[in-house]
């Protein structure tokens, strides 16, 4: 059988818009950002150059690595919290709720995306401040007041505001697609509920779960709003470092170095997640 090597212009014409889109708005900016990391700033104006001075400077600064590891740590913590908090909700929606309830719940989970994340973040001030709603309620039972704003806890609350609805949706969809007869079979064969979750549901929903975790990590890793406004910059993450770098002396090339390091990290996490999600499936 010979392969037809003649280009299919009809098929290509359908693919072309997305290729152009990606080239213009994804590949192009990345190439420019990489080039920019070698530029120099003179008198607050970027000048084209090919110098490694920005890379040399940022890579040798202790505060860059402190921010880097801190960002990885807090994004990982956010992922862990998000996955754990979302799981009972997603499990209930997938296995206990009716089709209608599940549909309505997913619709309600989408609604937060209709509103500005910044506005939702600011609304936490009213709830988390020392004179806020939460401390007032704790005060009724003789607890507090606790400092929640400008802490890592505040940052995590912000991350959850950003990621939790999406994580619940992804987990729910992952579990809703599991063949229920397999879960019932596990019960019939004497598997306890927690064992069923661990040995049947999680392996079957693995791909969706990993996708949810990767999304949670990516969104938290790149978020500026939560650590700045709810964490009070006490968690100087890489997005905050980018802002600081551009603010003083307009060092966009150095900010580009930080951004490239962030992208490389996120690519690594995403590829590792994909490899983990599909590894066993490929083997089986």
């Amino acid at each position, binding site marked *: 059988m010979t392969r037809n090597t003649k280009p299919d212009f009809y098929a290509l014409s359908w693919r072309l818009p997305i290729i152009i889109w990606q080239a213009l708005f994804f590949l192009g900016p990345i190439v420019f950002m990489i080039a920019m990391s070698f530029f120099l700033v003179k008198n607050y104006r970027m000048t084209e150059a090919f110098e490694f001075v920005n890379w040399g400077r940022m890579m040798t600064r202790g505060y860059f690595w402190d921010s880097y590891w801190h960002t990885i740590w807090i994004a990982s913590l956010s992922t862990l919290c998000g996955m754990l908090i979302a799981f009972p909700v997603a499990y209930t929606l997938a296995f206990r709720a009716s089709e209608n309830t599940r549909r309505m719940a997913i619709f309600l989970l989408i609604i937060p995306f209709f509103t500005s994340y910044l506005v939702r973040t600011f609304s936490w001030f009213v709830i988390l401040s020392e004179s806020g709603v939460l401390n007032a309620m704790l005060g009724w039972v003789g607890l507090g007041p606790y*400092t929640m704003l400008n802490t890592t806890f505040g940052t995590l609350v912000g991350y959850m505001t950003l990621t939790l609805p999406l994580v619940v949706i992804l987990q729910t969809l992952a579990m809703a697609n599991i063949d229920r007869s397999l879960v019932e079979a596990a019960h019939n064969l004497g598997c306890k509920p927690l064992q069923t979750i661990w040995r049947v549901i999680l392996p079957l929903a693995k791909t969706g779960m990993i996708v949810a975790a990767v999304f949670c990590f990516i969104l938290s890793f790149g978020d500026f709003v939560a650590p700045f406004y709810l964490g*009070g*910059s006490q968690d100087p993450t890489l997005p905050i470092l980018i802002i*600081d*770098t551009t603010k003083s002396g307009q060092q966009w090339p150095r900010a580009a170095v930080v951004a490239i390091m962030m992208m490389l990290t996120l690519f690594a996490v995403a590829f590792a997640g994909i490899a983990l999600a599909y590894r066993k499936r490929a083997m089986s």
Partner: protein
Amino acid sequence: MGNNTKTTGALTRRHLMQVGGGALLSAPFVSRAWAQTTDINVLAWYGHAEPDMVAEFEAANNVRFVPKYYAGGDNMLALIAQSPPGTYDLILSDGEFVQQLNAAGYIQEMEAADYPFDDMLHEDFTKFPGHWADGKLYSMILRGGHLGVSYNRNAMSEEEASSYDGFWKPELAGKVGHFDWHLPSLGMMSLKNGNGASLFDLTDDQWQAVQDTTMSLRPQVGGYFDYGGTFNGLKNGEMQAMCGIGDWITGVLERDGAPVASVIPKEGGIQWTESYSIGVETEKADICKQFIQYMLSPEGQVKSAQMLAYPGFCVTKAGRAMLNEVDMAEAERTGQVDGMADDPITLIREGRIHYRDVPKQQTLEDWNDFWSEYKNA
């Protein structure tokens, strides 16, 4: 009656036709009149082109201010550097950045005789550093404000706030906030170290000592904030003391009834100064000049002192006199009454105030690098 109604109806239709036709025919003239409104592109800190500041001038001169707001001198210089020449007609700048605007050729020479130099409240304002070059004027001082210790009255006494040592008060652990800009905060640490007038002109040893002092404050720090965050932190009581700000933020909260204040500590305070310059390639230099004259008139100075976004003190005697006349409460709150102990002009005369500047012996990058280290510590 019926006839009347009919007649009225017919007249109404005719009237409508007349009015409609008239409106249609006059539309080009309305449009032309509208088109004559001159846009003034202004680069400024937030608030300077808001209605409370410019609406009267706009109405009187058929102009419209089109603002581009920035936060910080670096940001301002970058916006100009990255824009085509002539983009901005009017530029409001922090005093210490005028020299760089001039060196880069972004602003044009101004005629000193056009402005009320003989009415200045302090002689420094007539020859403000960097505003003149080779005897030529390039920027006109508009207003100023002082930075010191800002605090919540329920958490600190005025006496405790009267020294930068107050930031280290054990009860304030985790409750001291920083305005997230290294210049004012590190300037204050330099004052605490006794560097006085040379607070920005530090030898290596002095710079190291400033870094050490700043680092020792880190356990007290509860956050680093922009304008909104600083405002919220003080308002909701999360932050009980703030380093790097002054009455330009607490004044707005104080007007709103919050128990906050700013004082100039015994080690000294820092002055921020705002000045207007005219863009070098603008074709609207005349109207820009008129606006600067308006802002330096007594009415303009009062508007500046009462500015909704953030207050600043008057620099002209006539401006202060009018403020005393029309808004004594604000004048007293800010010490702008002759003879008051916290009169900003008296504080300058007593040598307790130092003009904000850029580092002299280090680069801005050195200071910024340390600021990032400090935040990560």
